[in-house]
């Protein structure tokens, strides 16, 4: 079987496809952004003095092991799931002294704010696509560390 006049027919379909794809992308409903935030305590100690702390799960541990961090163990202090509406902002409390704020800039870029003791410590704008993770961290007393692991789930 032969296709007749492929060159005269294909451009029409191609143009229509481009047209549809363009407007499908534009008309696609804007989805909310879903995040998971973890407050993590990093230490060389085998156990946390707080019985409520538990070791981070394997996925988070793998991520942290791939970073240039020197601690042996990581304990999950608190885990929060939250949704940032498209173009909106959300704040999450991870401890008495630690909060983070996430603002959707354009669906791909987010502005992340770290608030310590009620005062802004850091503000950062960066792309954070689905599955990507932003880790904020710093030193804590007794050669330990604290980490905020922010993962975009959707």
């Amino acid at each position, binding site marked *: 079987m032969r296709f007749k006049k492929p060159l005269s027919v294909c451009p*029409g379909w191609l*143009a229509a496809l481009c047209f549809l794809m363009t407007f499908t992308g534009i008309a696609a409903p804007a989805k909310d952004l879903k995040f998971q935030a973890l407050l993590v305590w990093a230490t060389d100690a085998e156990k946390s003095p707080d019985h409520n702390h538990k070791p981070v799960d394997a996925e988070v541990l793998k991520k942290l092991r791939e*970073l240039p961090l020197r601690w042996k163990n990581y304990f999950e202090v608190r885990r929060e799931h939250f949704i940032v509406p498209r173009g909106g902002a959300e704040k999450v409390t991870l*401890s008495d002294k630690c909060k983070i704020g996430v603002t959707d800039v354009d669906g791909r870029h987010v502005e992340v704010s770290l608030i310590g003791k009620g005062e802004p*410590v850091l503000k950062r*704008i960066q792309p954070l696509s689905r599955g*990507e*993770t*932003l880790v904020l*961290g710093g030193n804590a007393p007794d050669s330990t560390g604290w980490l905020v692991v922010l993962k975009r789930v959707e």
Partner: protein
Amino acid sequence: MIMTSEQQLKLQAFLDGELPEKEARDAAALVARDAEAADLVAELRNTRRALAGFEPGLKVPESRECYWSRIERLIQRLEPAPATAPSVSFFGRLRRFLVPTGAVAALVIVAAVAVLELGRPGVLARPETEMTSPDSAAFTYQDDANGTTLVWLSYPAESGFAEKAVH
């Protein structure tokens, strides 16, 4: 005397008996007085004599006019008919117009969307970190393979935030 090609052709016609009477007499006089003309006529005569035995006498079954008329009809039948422009329907003309127009329109829309998207503030901006606490600084480690970014704050370990953050 050197003969011209016209004179040579005339001598050939003379030999074939195709010249009018006057010209035939002139040709005969030329042959009589010019040796080269006489040689040419003798050569042509010899050639005709030599070929006479090899020409088969073909006879066509019909008259000459009828024979050539048949060949002419055959030639006319084999000649391709002059090409006439195929008639194009209204929808065909419309499609010829709409296909390139649609493609150009689609490209313009894609370009416009791209320009609008890229023109939005912050889209092309590089990651931007702003330290709002005067006694701290930060460095960034980027792990593109795993999609992970680490921002390490030199926030004093003895500060209330770090001390109380996890306990």
